[in-house]
């Protein structure tokens, strides 16, 4: 009988150790993106914008991932008259998704830049956060995408840092 009693005690202790461990959060990040040119990537008015950055996260269980993107963008106008740069960005889980500034983790970045030599550049903070529900353990992919709403000729943009971080809570 005493063995049975100790068994119950051990079961209780195992349950105690197992339950809080599974409730432990996880933080993951990736290194900043930088090319030999001193920034992550750039695109001009005539270019398709590549996926800015992707992060792979191996979820240990079902839970919620709070995905944060960190980065900035500097745009410039080299024309002799005023030009527009109007972009949308979003944190998405489908690499084919079109960025929606009104969707979760979405933003709009728009400016009218004056002609040279004045007012020819400006910067945007791309900081974005989106929460994803994860139904079970497994690999997740998150992308930071940008899309042109309007980008006039002779304008270009440079992306800095572009790093994801994930805070996961079971």
């Amino acid at each position, binding site marked *: 009988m005493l063995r049975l*009693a*100790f068994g119950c005690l051990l079961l*209780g*202790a195992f349950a105690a150790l197992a339950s809080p461990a599974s409730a432990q959060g996880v*933080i993951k990040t990736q290194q900043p993106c930088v090319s030999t040119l001193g920034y992550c990537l750039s695109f001009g008015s005539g270019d398709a914008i590549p996926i800015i950055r992707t992060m792979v996260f191996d979820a240990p269980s079902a839970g919620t991932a709070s995905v944060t993107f960190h980065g900035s963008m500097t745009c410039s106008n080299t024309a002799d008259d005023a030009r527009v740069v109007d972009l949308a960005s979003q944190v998405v889980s489908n690499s084919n998704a079109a960025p929606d500034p009104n969707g979760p983790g979405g933003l709009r970045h728009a400016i009218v830049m004056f002609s040279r030599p004045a007012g020819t550049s400006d*910067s945007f903070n791309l900081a974005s956060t989106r929460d994803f529900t994860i139904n079970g353990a497994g690999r997740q992919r998150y992308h930071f995408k940008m899309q042109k709403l309007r980008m006039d000729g002779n304008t270009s943009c440079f992306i800095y840092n572009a790093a994801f971080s994930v805070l996961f809570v079971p």
Partner: protein
Amino acid sequence: MDRMNRIVISALARAFLVGAAAVALFGTAGPAAAQAIVTQGPCVSASGYCLGFTEEDDAIPVVRSVVFNAPSAGTAMVRFHGSVVCFNQFFRPAVVDLVSQIVTKAAAVPDPNGPGGLRHAIVFTAGSDPLFGGIDKADTFNLRSTRVVEIAAAGPRKFFFKIASLRMDSATSCVVYNAAFSIVFVP
């Protein structure tokens, strides 16, 4: 036999209670409880903003620092919240080109390509001298930054938000607002 049954039932009940107590104890004071979220109040001076700097300053002071007492080894997600408003008071176009970074040493030089680093650059149109009724040109940068730092052991860790000037033309100035850190810690 009845007495024996009572003893057995009593022993089982005690064991169950001890186990349940262990669950409750570990569930609230165990590893899960060592997760933490800490923050600091916004920075504001009597001038109505946190701090300011101009192109005449030799160096931009450390914008803000925070001390985090890590309860154990783990991972800290360090976030900085704030904005900087910059002005051109001159009647010619002017450049303000800044870099910022969350760093772990007060003497570190901010790197826009390092973890938690950013670049903030603008070419202003010409301002008009306020002495002649003109209007300054102004623009705002969001300083929101995130950096993840691995912490090897329990103890105090200090984080700094620094800004450095790559170029600040004559008669430009900037003021920083809010400048507050928050930290999410997971063992």
